[in-house]
């Protein structure tokens, strides 16, 4: 397998305020992700999956271990790793189009005219062209998340990091955005890490699901979803539901076992 992103023996420990108690968040953890792959990080809440993704994004620093992207050793954050947050990170002082265009602001690889084209392209892709001149406090939460996704795509990152981006949305909006993301993924083939605690969301969107243990995070199981349910079937809503549910139950059982362990340990 092509090792586009390579996480090697990464550890992370949080210390309490008085530096007396430590909490291991990530144990020595290794992981590889191929170019163009859509990987879902799944695990019990508070297990450290978000921390691992933030480390990959350069927003937090690991204690030990290394991360490489296409062979380059990574340190702090940069434009190669775009991030979509759970909370709405679109800028309230900018209109929808200006927000998306902000994604191109620090690019030196394209001309000013191309930046306009890129902006319009992604604004259309997330279906917000009609809301171009709206300030973001006058559009819905789902639309704001689409603004954030379009803004990140406009910056042309090598990988897309999504931290429970649909977690705060209602069920209908969430489903709509999940399918929209699958369409985007089909046309863009962007390497994506997507953190979620929603098992069905993970199965629906993933090429591969990585299931984490309770804290400290380690990989419990990796599942190649494409081998079970082809991505085309999921996208077209023609997936074999029997397979879908049995996969869901299998994953839920693993997570439940992990959860039980944590509860018993405390």
């Amino acid at each position, binding site marked *: 397998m092509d090792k586009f992103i390579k996480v090697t023996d990464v550890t992370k420990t949080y210390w309490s305020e008085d530096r007396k108690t430590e909490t291991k968040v990530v144990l020595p953890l290794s992981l590889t992700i191929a170019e163009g792959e859509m990987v879902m990080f799944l695990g019990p809440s508070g297990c450290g999956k978000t921390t691992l993704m933030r480390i990959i*994004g350069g927003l937090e620093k690991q204690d030990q271990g290394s991360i490489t992207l296409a062979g380059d050793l990574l340190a702090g954050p940069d*434009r190669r790793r775009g991030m979509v*947050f759970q909370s709405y990170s679109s*800028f309230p*002082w900018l209109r929808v189009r200006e927000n998306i265009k*902000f994604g191109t602001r620090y690019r030196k690889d394209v001309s000013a005219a191309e930046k306009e084209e890129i902006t319009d392209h992604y604004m259309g892709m997330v279906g917000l062209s009609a809301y171009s001149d709206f300030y973001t*406090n006058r559009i819905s939460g789902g639309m704001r998340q689409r603004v954030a996704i379009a*803004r*990140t795509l406009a910056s042309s990152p090598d990988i897309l990091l999504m931290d429970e981006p649909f977690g705060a949305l209602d069920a209908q909006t969430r489903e709509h955005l999940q399918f929209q993301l699958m369409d985007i993924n089909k046309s863009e083939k962007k390497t994506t890490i997507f953190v979620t605690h929603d098992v069905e969301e993970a199965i629906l969107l993933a090429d591969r699901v990585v299931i984490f243990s309770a804290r400290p995070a380690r990989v419990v199981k990796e599942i190649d979803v494409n081998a079970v349910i082809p991505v085309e079937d999921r996208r077209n809503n023609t997936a074999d539901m029997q397979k879908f549910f049995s996969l869901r139950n299998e994953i839920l059982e693993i997570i439940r076992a992990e959860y039980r362990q944590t509860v018993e340990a405390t």
Partner: protein
Amino acid sequence: MIKSLFVFRHALPRKTEIILGIFGFILFLTIWHMTASSGVIRPEFLPTPFAVAQAFVRLFTERDFASDIIVSVGRVWFAFLLSVVIAVPLGLMMSTYRAVGAILEPFIDFLRYLPVPALVPLLVIWFGVGETSKIAVLWMGTFFQLILLIADDTKRVPTEYIESGHTLGASNGQIMRHIIIPAALPNMIDNLRITLGWCWTYLIIAEIVAANSGIGHMIWSLRRFVKTPEVMAGIIAIGIIGLLTDQAFRFAHARLFSYQRR
């Protein structure tokens, strides 16, 4: 009709609010007038609103009050802007670089609890009774408060905005200029408005203690002749200037930050 005005936690039409606001003023003036003209309190202590209004006109026609106002407004704005140009960059640095905050915060917390009026004698010894000491009083009264307010506004910018900036490829300087400042600006402008109000409090103190011009000086010198209507007219003039400035700030705020309207 009356009942519709008192619905629990219910909004009122803008027009009704304005009428009620004017009603509040009229109510105050009426009670004042009735008390003053009843003869219970001597007019040297409480003149009628009409006497004060006449005194207001006299101040302009006989005592060149307009130039006193210009002097006072000039002092307030000069000291205020002097505070702003230093406090804003320092406040931004304090919240951005922990070391700057750690050095300055305890020191400023100490300084801002010093009562400014108590510093006036010291400032007069240092700077004499000229303009410098008055500007220094106003500056001391606002600068240390403002710097902490600005630092707080900056700190309250959501981390996601800043992290988004990093992952979109912005440098630290670009994040400051393109994200932190625009994000914090509405609250900053609001705090500037409040700080400007404090300037007036300290101005009167400064002008009463050591000045030969300005609204505070005028009020204080008329006090000696028990010219109560003029003294009250002077106080009301400050209120009017304050109200107008405040409204101008609010108007500008609403225009500049129209995106905050829902």
